[in-house]
């Protein structure tokens, strides 16, 4: 758009071009492009540097050995991270099993059933859960939640002791409490994304179901849930990614025992928690430090995979949105 200067009618246009300002155009463009390129460089450097520092541990124990060996023994300098991986998986699965259904329920309620006036305040309240820092969740978890849960946990553990992962004595800080706290922490994000997806359900779909005599719940089953399935899966994956990486709240309530937990009510350890707890002692021990960085790297790769899955599902959802709604328009 090479417009020349506007004929002056009482002063020059404030937006008139001069040769100096024309030179600033590519300057800004290059500056901003440089910033973006720097971000790319930073992330690449991030990954490469982590890998280089972790390599001694992988060299010593093997890639599969490091991840699947069941022996994290600091004094003997043996670092097999399997107990940590199991702990990470158990807490994250518990977080998903508890958090995602509740999040979907809140999303459904807020989009479909909530009276208009209550919608805004309730939404803000749910989002406030995300504003609580993780160390505060840990504080509340260990002093309020965990002690109060011991009784019910012991009862459940005794009743279900025939199942694996149940039975035995319950300890105050344990994997289940960690999973529960994680569920609370991922709830806002899963709920927010699910809500976003649910509000894009074409109203014709919903009205069509209602006009055919469906009850509200049946309309949700028929129109809202199938439509939002991909988006909700994406939201759940994002929640999982968050749960896997959470460090501080988990390390306060999980008991920090580097063993594969016998039951969900015994102590455990996660990849993130071990990094936070042991790095001080690893300051001068190259093998230990490499092992911790390797644990961080495994964590990073796990979250990468989970987030890639999430993106895949969310893209599927967006593609579904753009396609013609099936059957209803005809």
């Amino acid at each position, binding site marked *: 758009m090479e*417009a020349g200067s506007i004929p002056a009618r009482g002063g020059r246009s404030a937006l008139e071009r001069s040769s100096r300002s024309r030179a600033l155009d590519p300057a800004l463009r290059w500056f901003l492009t440089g910033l973006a390129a720097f971000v790319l460089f930073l992330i690449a450097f991030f990954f490469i540097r982590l890998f280089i520092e972790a390599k001694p541990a992988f060299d010593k124990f093997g890639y599969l050995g490091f991840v699947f060996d069941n022996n994290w023994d600091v004094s003997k300098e043996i670092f097999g991270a399997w107990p940590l991986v199991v702990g990470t998986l158990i807490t994250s699965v518990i977080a998903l099993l508890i958090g995602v259904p509740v999040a979907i329920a809140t999303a459904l309620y807020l989009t479909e059933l909530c009276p208009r006036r209550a919608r805004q305040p309730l939404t803000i309240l749910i989002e406030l859960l995300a504003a609580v*820092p993780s160390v505060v969740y840990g504080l509340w978890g260990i002093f309020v939640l965990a002690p109060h849960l011991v009784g019910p946990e012991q009862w459940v553990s005794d009743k279900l002791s025939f199942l694996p992962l149940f039975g035995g004595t319950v300890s105050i800080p344990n994997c289940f409490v960690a999973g529960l706290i994680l569920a609370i922490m991922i709830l806002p994000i899963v709920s927010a994304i699910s809500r976003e997806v649910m509000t894009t359900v074409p109203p014709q779909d919903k009205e069509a179901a209602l006009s055919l005599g469906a009850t509200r719940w049946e309309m949700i089953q028929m129109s809202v849930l199938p439509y939002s399935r991909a988006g909700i899966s994406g939201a759940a994956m994002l929640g999982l990614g968050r749960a896997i990486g959470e460090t501080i709240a988990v390390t306060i309530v999980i008991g920090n025992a580097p063993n594969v937990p016998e039951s969900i009510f015994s102590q455990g350890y996660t990849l993130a928690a071990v990094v936070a707890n042991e790095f001080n002692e690893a300051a001068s021990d190259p093998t230990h430090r490499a092992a911790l960085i390797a644990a961080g790297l495994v*964590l*990073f790769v796990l*979250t990468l995979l989970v987030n890639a899955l999430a993106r895949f599902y969310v893209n599927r959802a967006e593609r579904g949105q753009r396609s013609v709604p099936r059957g209803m328009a005809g």
Partner: protein
Amino acid sequence: MTTLPAVSSRRRATDRVMRVALLVLTLIALVPLVLIVYYLLKEGLGAWSKDFFTTDPTGRFLGDPGGIKSAIFGTIVMVALASLIAIPFGVGVALYLVEYGKAGRFANIVRYFIDVMTGVPSVVFGLFVYIVLVVSQIGGTFAAWKGSIALALLMLPVVTRSSEVVLNLVPDSLREAALALGAPRWRVTLRVVLPTALPGLMTGSMLAVARAAGETAPLLFTAAFVFGTQFDLSQRMNSLPLQIFNDVGQAQDRLVQRAWGAALTLVVLVLLLTLVARLVQRRSRLA
């Protein structure tokens, strides 16, 4: 499509049950929030006093344990520095993506990597800065500015993402009008697009700041911990999340109470930032 049979009482009952269930589950989701606020107020308010905010933690076993002054100042200083780094950087990258990169290959790669960055756990950022800056002993060992860098890394993808969304909302007609009047591209970007998007940018940035203020793991490895108030960025510095983390594991009741008081302070700080961000969003012309 065949019509569904008339609504039987069984179907109506299912409908009612499920609606109640959804409401109940939503209320259950709010129970933790209520409990957290209740306990924060119950235990934390008891710790608040003038001394609490004006004295440093002493670390002494017997005698006065002190307050959390150094933690409050430390958080403010380190988060401010991190914001000074991350916000211009993030907004700059978002500007590039929206104004120049658009749907190009390079821009898409940048978008993808920013997305990757949002998923990285904060402890890994801390670890990264620990390896690159602390272990290598560049500029001393543990230092507050290194903590700020770790926090800035955390904030960067959040700021970029939200800024990109806001900048995309600026109508093209505004840009075209300015260009039609003869403004050079850089003027359009800096004097038309940015000011229009400013409230939204501020909202997104403040939410990122609120998030950074509550992070513990990145600071564990970088700024470490110190009792006294000091503003030398090249030295260790205290911070609210670290202060809480240290006091959580203590057996002494008054130290635990200090943890609650500090937690209440931190939550109030984060809530204030979030509130201001939302208020700014309300007044935005693009909302």
